[in-house]
């Protein structure tokens, strides 16, 4: 087999290059948009499965900042640099990494347009754009407001902004967190964050409090979180749900107030996690539905709305599978197999997937949820009898083991994807 990675040579920004192929002779041309856990994984897996494939990864940022464990940065236990990865290993594997945003997709002509105006032709397009924050969804919360009331729901400068606000908060201050309705990225993430913030406050600002204003009554691992909060943090964390009237309806960034249907709370630090939707390029590609997310055929992750486009990771509607880094990676591996097979004219595989998700209530106190999933006719379903959360009565040793597993899980996954 001849390596066809040379059909596109792109050696950095500003290099003029024509991405229009001269003919359709080149078989197996895949373009991936988005270099997170889903996109970087699928690009690398495609090359691993068939190094004759031409694989381009379009990702605006040269450095990726991973979300899992970023709450440990907020809590002061990790540096943001420990969350950061380059795409050098992907390039070394023969993935054409293009650090530019994709600005348009033409599914009819199978063309992706980059910011510099060049276009890429594809046989299969894999979209892994992750989430966009919905700046229209919450009154008073836009990009400017986020500079004062960080969301920190995309790891990076927002993460360190929230950490720094906590560090400079007045003694005895109130941290208010706003949590949206599902679906959103990382279902247990807000509660892990509240835990690690409480841990920081307990050490450094013991009279301070965390108030969680939640738009729902149930959340991932709720009983485990509630009991751990009580035993580790006493009354530092107060959680209010939808039934308490805690749905946040508006914020005021200048005054740092957060309003629910029934009251307005004065915060010292406010962490606003707004409603979310699939990343913008998914909307431009026409693969989102009215929900703002991307419907897919479960077996192959192919879009139900556009041909030859697959959607994986947080942007996809994977039903029972949560929007987690583990799920994104698992979907990517499966999607790579399916795309490889489809390009070879083979039928797709009916495969099962796993999700495992750890939450750190403290650096040495971890809890987990796991699930095994299978594709049904229309949706991904969880296999009954499998999966579930850590036992409620587990020992502190088990919690410590799970905390250690969380860190090793992160190291393993980031090694596979980026190292």
């Amino acid at each position, binding site marked *: 087999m001849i390596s066809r990675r040379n059909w596109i040579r792109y050696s950095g920004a500003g290099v003029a290059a024509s991405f229009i192929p001269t003919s359709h002779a080149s078989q197996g041309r895949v373009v991936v948009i988005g270099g997170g856990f889903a996109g970087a994984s699928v690009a690398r897996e495609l090359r691993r499965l068939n190094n004759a494939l031409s694989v381009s990864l379009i990702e605006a940022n040269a450095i990726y900042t991973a979300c899992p464990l970023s709450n440990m940065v907020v809590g002061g236990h990790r540096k943001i640099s420990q969350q950061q990865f380059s795409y050098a290993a992907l390039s070394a594997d023969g993935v054409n990494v293009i650090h530019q945003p994709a600005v348009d997709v033409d599914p009819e002509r199978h063309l992706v347009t980059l910011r510099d105006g060049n276009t890429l032709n594809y046989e299969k397009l894999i979209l892994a754009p992750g989430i966009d924050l919905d700046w229209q969804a919450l009154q008073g919360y836009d990009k400017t407001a986020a500079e004062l009331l960080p969301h920190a729901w995309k790891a990076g400068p927002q993460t360190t902004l929230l950490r720094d606000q906590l560090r400079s908060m007045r003694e005895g201050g109130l941290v208010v967190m706003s949590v949206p309705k599902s679906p959103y990225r990382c279902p247990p993430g807000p509660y892990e964050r509240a835990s690690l913030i409480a841990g920081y406050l307990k050490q450094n600002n013991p009279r301070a409090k965390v108030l969680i204003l939640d738009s729902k*009554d149930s959340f991932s691992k709720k009983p485990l979180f509630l009991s751990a909060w009580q035993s580790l943090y006493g009354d530092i964390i107060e959680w209010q749900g*939808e*039934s308490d*009237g805690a749905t946040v309806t508006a914020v005021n960034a200048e005054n740092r107030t957060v309003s629910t*249907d*029934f*009251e307005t709370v004065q915060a010292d630090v406010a962490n606003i996690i707004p409603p979310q939707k699939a990343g913008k390029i998914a909307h431009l590609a026409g693969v989102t539905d009215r929900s703002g997310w991307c419907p897919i055929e479960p077996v192959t992750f192919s879009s139900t709305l556009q041909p030859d486009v697959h959607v994986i990771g947080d942007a996809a509607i994977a039903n029972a599978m949560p929007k987690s880094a583990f799920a994104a990676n698992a979907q990517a591996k499966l999607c790579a197999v399916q795309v490889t097979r489809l390009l070879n004219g083979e039928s797709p595989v009916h495969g099962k997937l796993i999700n495992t998700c750890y939450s750190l209530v403290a650096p040495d106190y971890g809890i987990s949820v796991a699930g095994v999933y299978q594709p049904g006719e229309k949706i991904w379903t969880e296999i009954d009898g499998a999966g579930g959360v850590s036992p409620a009565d587990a020992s502190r040793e088990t919690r410590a083991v799970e905390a250690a597993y969380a860190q090793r899980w992160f190291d393993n996954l980031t090694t596979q994807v980026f190292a």
Partner: protein
Amino acid sequence: MLKARISVPARARQGEIMAVKTLISHPMETGFRRNSLGQAIPRDILTRFECRYNEKPVFTATLHPAVAANPFIAFHVRAQDSGKLEFIWTDQDDQVTRVTRELTVDPAA
């Protein structure tokens, strides 16, 4: 008496349209669920909500099991005269929960 939360202005100008929000703690048990032993859990719901403004009904709601637990109902009322806003929930056994708020109405500007 159930626990209720009301959001309504204490003061308004005559003619002003006031937002009213109500929330009451109630399971709204549908009657369709079964417990862990497989026995049907009997229906237990609020069936009616009413808002009276100086004794006059201005908003009523008929509720069925498909209203979510801890019913939340928001609506509007036009401010007319100072007086009393009453919020009345009635369950399927005619048990009543009543909450009252005083309202001061200033003349229109």
